[in-house]
């Protein structure tokens, strides 16, 4: 079920009353709120990132294989890092290619309906100016249109992949460069 305008506005209003995280653990958690996929930030060096090795255990044996093929230890390590980054990109791509859930969409309605909902929610003592109200209505209606354009919704997942393109490009270029046999 999609979210109603009232709920959306109430959620946002309540969020404004928050003092933010208070505990150390909460602050640590919220410090990662802006992290989307970590492809641009995290080092993919397995030795620097042991959980990744846990996630991709076979990569350790790849290094031995590459050394046996004649690659130097340093180059094998570099290739492994590049392979790991390429695989991370692939995983992020798979998890990003999703349709938006109905819960995250506003219902379809006319601009007049949006105006009447905003009016209904208004406090009689509110100091909101007509100009401000118009802006809120315009924003909400824009969102309503966006959430009810089914072809636009289908395009959202392509858009998610478009944002990942530069990481793909970097990862596969690096992999090719690093796997060239060096004299």
């Amino acid at each position: 079920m999609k979210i109603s305008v009232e709920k959306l506005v109430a959620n946002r209003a309540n969020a404004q009353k928050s003092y933010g995280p208070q505990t150390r653990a909460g602050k640590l958690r919220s410090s990662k709120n802006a992290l989307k996929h970590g492809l641009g930030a995290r080092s993919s060096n397995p030795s620097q990132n042991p959980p990744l090795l846990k996630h991709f255990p076979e990569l350790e044996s790849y290094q031995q294989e590459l050394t046996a093929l004649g690659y130097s230890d340093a180059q094998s390590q570099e290739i492994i890092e590049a392979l790991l980054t390429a695989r991370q990109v692939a995983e992020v791509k798979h998890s990003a290619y999703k349709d938006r859930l109905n819960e995250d969409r506003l219902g379809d309605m006319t601009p007049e309906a949006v105006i009447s909902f905003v009016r209904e929610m208004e406090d009689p003592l509110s100091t909101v100016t007509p100009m401000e109200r118009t802006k809120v209505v315009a924003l909400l209606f824009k969102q309503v249109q966006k959430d009810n354009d089914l072809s636009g919704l289908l395009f959202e997942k392509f858009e998610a992949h478009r944002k990942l393109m530069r990481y793909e490009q970097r990862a596969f270029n690096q992999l090719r460069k690093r796997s060239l046999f060096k004299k």
Partner: protein
Amino acid sequence: MADHKEIKLPQSVSYSNLPEYKDHVDQILNSYDSPEGVLGELVRQMADAMWWVKTYQKDKDHLIVMKMAMLIKSRSDLGMDAEEKALRFFDCLLNAWSGQELDSEDQAFLDDAMRSKGHNMASLRADAVRRSVKELEVIDRLIERQFKNMRLLMQSYESVRFAPQLLKKMDLEIRQLEQGIEKTIEDQRREVSRQ
């Protein structure tokens, strides 16, 4: 607000867990004689890029058909009915465009809607494509990126595959160089002893 509809867009399932994805990867691995280790990993990544090309192409078509559906959906329709109608148009248009025969009820439903907007199938599709140019450009760039990825992976595959031969060749070159230098040193020694 009275809105309790559930639309039936494709489900949010990670593709890598889909059986058809696994079959696709296995099929590509088999065509490369099922390599293991690093080569296997590279082939799996190539298969992944191929998967995305197929997925993008299929979804690109869905996007155009959905745009067509949105174009014939009446603007006055709102709420649950409108979305259900649009999804029914989508199904009908997708089937019609892929050459499947529609039952008479669906055909009449589609024909009425197209007629009311002054369209036939070809003009509707042309209009939908014209209105989605920007989106289609992005999708085409994504497809192109996958082909580039495949080429880069292929080059990596070749490098790793031929590394032992290159190593042997380099070993041979080094040995030849060493022999050449040894011969020069020997010649110098002989020269000195002759003098």
